[in-house]
């Protein structure tokens, strides 16, 4: 069945794949973006169809419902304006006090909205593709979040789209702080023991002092330089001792629903 020439081609292909697997990460990232660029017309078509369907759905909403929604949005807007004014005052006060103490000034978050265009087709990774890239100011390692909390970090960037690695993926570890306790920090890692629990991750390397309680909020700590401090991650669900009580591990329910992401915010530097 297989001829000699077939065997030669097979050996050549196997060698080519082995070489491909050994290429450095940067080159592989560029190659991946180039190959996945072939899917751009289909992604465009898919998002246009989504938009058209959304518009069609909006056209079917009755007028009184739209008026009610506008009124609600107007009220929300007024409340947010008031909170913004208050927040601006707090911000100025914070900046002044930091200046007096000689602390580094906090930088305001700059965000860019991105649409999720694809998810990782393999079941053993948690990643997705967004429709923003270098031309929108997106760079590698920038935090990605929703209004509910942290989602992940930008892994690789192309001209018009980027790959985002999500919380719960083994490639992403985040320094986290349990709010309400003193100096209780840990590392957010993939829930390898039970990855079937969608929306659950492990908070590892907590101290053995047993200060963490279920219901406490977990936010980014700010150590490591990738994620600024204070981005919500989730809530502690339960805590268990580890390594004969030398350290503690907690399960965290993520604030953002990673299974239903349509749009995300990329935090620009």
């Amino acid at each position, binding site marked *: 069945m297989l001829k000699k020439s077939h065997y030669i081609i*097979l050996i050549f292909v196997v060698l080519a794949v082995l070489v491909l697997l050994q290429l450095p990460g940067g080159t*592989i990232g560029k190659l991946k973006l180039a190959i996945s660029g072939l899917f751009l017309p289909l992604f465009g078509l898919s998002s246009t169809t989504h938009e058209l369907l959304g518009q069609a759905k909006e056209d079917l909403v009755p007028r009184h419902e739209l008026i009610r929604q506008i009124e609600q949005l107007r009220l929300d807007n007024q409340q947010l304006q008031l909170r913004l004014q208050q927040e601006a005052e707090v911000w100025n006060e914070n900046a002044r006090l930091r200046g007096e103490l000689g602390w580094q000034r906090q930088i305001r978050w700059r965000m860019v909205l991105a649409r999720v265009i694809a998810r990782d*087709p393999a079941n053993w990774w948690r*990643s997705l593709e967004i429709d923003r890239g270098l031309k929108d100011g997106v760079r590698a390692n920038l935090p990605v979040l929703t209004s509910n909390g942290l989602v992940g970090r930008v892994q690789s960037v192309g001209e018009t789209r980027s790959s985002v690695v999500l919380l719960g993926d083994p490639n992403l570890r985040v320094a986290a702080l349990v709010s309400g306790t003193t100096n209780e920090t840990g590392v957010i890692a993939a829930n390898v023991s039970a990855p079937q629990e969608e929306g659950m991750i492990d908070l590892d390397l907590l101290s053995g002092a047993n200060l963490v309680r279920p219901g406490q909020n977990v936010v980014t700590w700010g150590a490591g330089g990738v994620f600024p401090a204070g981005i919500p991650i989730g809530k502690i669900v339960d805590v268990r001792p580890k390594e004969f009580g030398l350290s503690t591990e907690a399960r965290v329910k993520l604030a953002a629903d990673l*299974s239903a992401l349509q749009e995300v915010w990329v935090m620009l530097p």
Partner: protein
Amino acid sequence: MSWRPTLFVLAAAFLAVFLEASFGFFRNLLGAQIDLLPALMVYTALTLGFTSILLLAVCGGLWFDSLSLNPLGASVLPLLVIGILIYRSRELLLREHLPAQLILGAAAGALQPPGTLFICLNAGVRPLLGWVSLWHWMVMAAGSGAATPICFKLFDRLRRALEYQPATQTSFRPDREIKRGKS
């Protein structure tokens, strides 16, 4: 050799990878995404030639890996191995039988993930593995098994519709025509 069937299979592989990345119906319903490339490989290996197998493994694998965190090329070799294994023994396999298609599809779907994971682990990356991976593996195998007969039906119909079909010989023979009436 006609290139049309190969092009159809490659187009289907492209579309399959796009659908796997874009639509999460099975992921939301079963907790795992179904991979359609092993089913396509079973059809290709039983119907088309060596070049088609090679092209499907290389293109399909690279397309899949480009949208995934897999190291680029990790899916190529398992697909190629599945294709070559079936191709080598295709004289012995009952191509038209539904149970054979189901079993071959399921076997291909069951072989593909461990093969890819083996390459991933050897390439130094650490995928998300746990007890749930067994469930993923079963869903992928069952999904591939179910998709294989659909692949056969669709592609056979497409081939019949688009390819030249030689006219079949009719049983009509002028010398055996029955002449009615009085001569």
